[in-house]
């Protein structure tokens, strides 16, 4: 299927995409995750054929696409903020690709109706796009992309501009849609929750480079470096030292199997510590905030504040002294800077 090899895109002297490798297999959904400005949109444009590569190549089933212009690649791209045609109504936007493909009117009408029904907008066919809400525009953009039956679906921050109920609803619909159609897809986002919820594989990008790639569970449980961990929302790293019994941190020695000695950095994954009356670490609860069925605690165990999430009904009060047990797997050890 799709393979990107050592892709390089330069803008002036800066490299927006700097030696990226990426593969998308049949029916696979790959999330490209990174902060804004990391080159993910540029990577999509390069795959789509909108942005020439300065080096490397994009292949489809082994064929180099260098000479194939964007309009012949049959890759669908849903743009950030959708790029709907303001001079066409909903039906006209969805029919666009079919007209380009020379599909006759009857077939086109049938297909437009079908795709609009699929995204639940059958009734809005004659509406002007400017009259639609953000979520509706988003669905029109999706319908427009799907109508031509692309061989690869690319989504650029598709939920970025939507409010939360829409996001959650559409995330579920995307998941179902991708499962049902079996379309290979690249989903670009800066939101790790979206990426983890949707993707078979996550590729983390930073400053034009891929820093980590793997199944969501792997990426989450073993971020490649402290930057990735921080990007996933983990606590900032703290300096530590290797000792015989584990790593020596401001909170005490955490029992982790490490080899060698010397200075390291430690990041606590959110599940690294849990409330346990027999746990070795004593801490004072400094903050407790309500988060639905959970409570987010901030506790003081001597060093930097530690955050952990507990079921709401187990939540202690602010000022309580609690005991914490360590889950060794959740203690991430990285080399010192």
């Amino acid at each position: 299927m799709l393979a990107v090899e050592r892709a390089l895109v330069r803008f002036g002297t800066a490299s927006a995409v700097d030696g990226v490798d990426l593969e998308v297999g049949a029916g696979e959904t790959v999330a490209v995750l990174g902060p804004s400005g990391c080159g993910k949109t540029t990577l999509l444009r390069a795959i789509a054929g909108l942005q020439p590569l300065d080096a490397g190549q994009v292949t489809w089933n082994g064929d180099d696409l260098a000479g194939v212009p964007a309009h012949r690649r049959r890759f669908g791209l849903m743009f950030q903020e959708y790029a709907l045609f303001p001079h066409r109504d909903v039906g006209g936007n969805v029919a666009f690709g079919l007209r380009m493909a020379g599909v006759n009117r009857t077939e086109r009408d049938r297909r437009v109706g079908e795709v609009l029904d699929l995204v639940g907008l059958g009734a809005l066919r004659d509406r002007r796009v400017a009259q639609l809400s953000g979520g509706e525009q988003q669905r029109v953009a999706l319908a427009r992309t799907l109508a031509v039956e692309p061989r690869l679906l690319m989504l650029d921050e598709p939920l970025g501009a939507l409010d939360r109920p829409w996001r959650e609803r559409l995330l579920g619909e995307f998941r179902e849609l991708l499962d049902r159609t079996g379309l290979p897809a690249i989903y670009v986002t800066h939101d790790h929750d979206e990426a983890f919820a949707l993707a078979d594989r996550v590729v983390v990008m930073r400053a034009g480079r891929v820093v980590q790639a793997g199944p969501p569970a792997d990426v989450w449980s073993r971020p490649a470096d402290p930057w990735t961990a921080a990007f996933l929302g983990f606590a900032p790293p703290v300096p530590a030292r290797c000792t015989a019994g584990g790593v020596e941190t401001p909170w005490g020695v955490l029992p982790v199997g490490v080899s060698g000695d010397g200075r390291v950095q430690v990041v606590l994954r959110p599940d690294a510590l849990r409330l346990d009356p027999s746990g070795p670490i004593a801490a004072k609860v400094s903050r407790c905030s309500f988060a639905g069925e959970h409570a987010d605690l901030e506790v003081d165990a001597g060093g930097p504040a530690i955050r952990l999430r507990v079921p709401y009904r187990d939540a202690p009060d602010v000022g309580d002294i609690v005991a914490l047990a360590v889950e060794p797997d959740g203690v991430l050890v990285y080399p010192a800077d």
Partner: protein
Amino acid sequence: MSGRAGRVLRAAIPLGFLGVFFVWPVAAIIGRSLTAGALHDVFVDRGLRHVAWFTLWQAVAATGLTLAVGLPAAYVVARYEFPGRRLFRAFVTVPFVLPTVVVATAFLVLFRPGGALSFLGWQRGVAPMMVAEVFFNVAVVVRMVGGFWSNLDPHRTDAARVLGASRGRAFREVTLPLLGPAIMAAASIVFLFTFTAFGVVLLLADPAHATLEVEIYRQGVQLFDLPVAAALALVQMVGVVALLATMARMQERRAVTQRLVAARDAARRPRGGERWVVAGVLGATTLFLGGPLVVLAGESVRVGGSWSLAAYRALGSASTDTLFVPASDALVNSLGFAALAACIAVVVGGLASVVIASRPGRATRAMDTLLMLPLGTSAVTVGFGFLVALDRWPLDLRAKTILVPIAQSVVAIPFVVRAVVPAIRSIDPRLRDAAALLGAPPRRVWREVDLPIALRAFTVGFGFAIAVSLGEFGATLFVARPDSPTIPIAISRFLARPGALNVGQAMAMSTILMVVTGAVVLAIEQVRVRQLGEL
């Protein structure tokens, strides 16, 4: 037509057209009569320096005044929905297309002793000349700025208001900068018109005040000093090129890609105090632009001091030794020439706009400047140049009627370019990407995205081109054959003859031209609304 070959071809057509029908004729005139001595005279002679200075300051002042009068009207037309809005838009355009001779005469009638405005004591001088210049050019501001303004997203002003900006502040900090390119474009056109003003200066200013254009005419046609005329033409052109280059650069830098919204969404009915503002602006503008037109129409039904339709009856009669042909022929000629000229201008100017808008850079900026040059060139020079340069192999067109629409299209192309380039530059480039990914090859992308979205601008450009061609006088005077006059030519022939009936016929024809122009402009508004109701 894609890739490099297509780009070259798109650039080659307008460049070739302008090269043959503008650069070559003008170069021929200058090349044949310019001498170093004359150029020296022009720079040393205090009188001519005075002319250059006067030309410059009156153009700056008139441009400022035109913006002051036109921007409120542009605002009202763009932002408010009111009965007769379309009619008002068309009405504003009418003065712009009237032959200068006619407008000058209308103002002379207003300011002469016994006229409605005689109390101002402005019978002849700089003041009535300026008033006439503003009268002519208000349309440029209302149409160009108003057209762009109606496409601006009003939510941005709302955002500024919410952030604590007063109405005036929001206008200054948000709307004005976004309107910048359109205002610049309109101001540059108004400046060019006033910088090269001819008819109104000749007829309304006192003899002590002359612009370069009038001086070129005096030196070349009255004093037969062709070298000095050519030198002046060169000075004028250099000034215009410098200005145009600066304008093109500023416009490019300031063009902001922005979300355009449907004109109908942006315009709303005025509320509360706004009603007074809208009514005041509409009333004042209508009075200013309508007054002289009413006087003009009134004069056409007054022959020798009493009410009479004699002038119109005389026009209807077949035998006129002034025109050689029935007056209706002049009308048919004018319409035919204008339609043809506008088509040429839209094709040539449209191609050029695509090139200019798609690739910012030195080469396209130079092209932009070249295309604007006809505006700043003496019509006398262009018309005369046609006769000198196009009368022999390989292009012997002197006796051909086709020269008339060609000459008119040369003058009209800048309008198309100025209307279309900002529109194309404002299109979100992702729309083109989206079309490409949905399978549209480059040429199809242009047809499906750029063209429909810029169609409004094309229509505005086409309307302007028609209007300019209908009223064009200077160049047409040289190239029209005696037996195929246009309306402005016919009017000038009537005015040149003594007798109340001839003056009356001139006024009658002016009134007809006024009506025809209004009808054309209104028709274009209709097409625009029907085709672009969606946008």
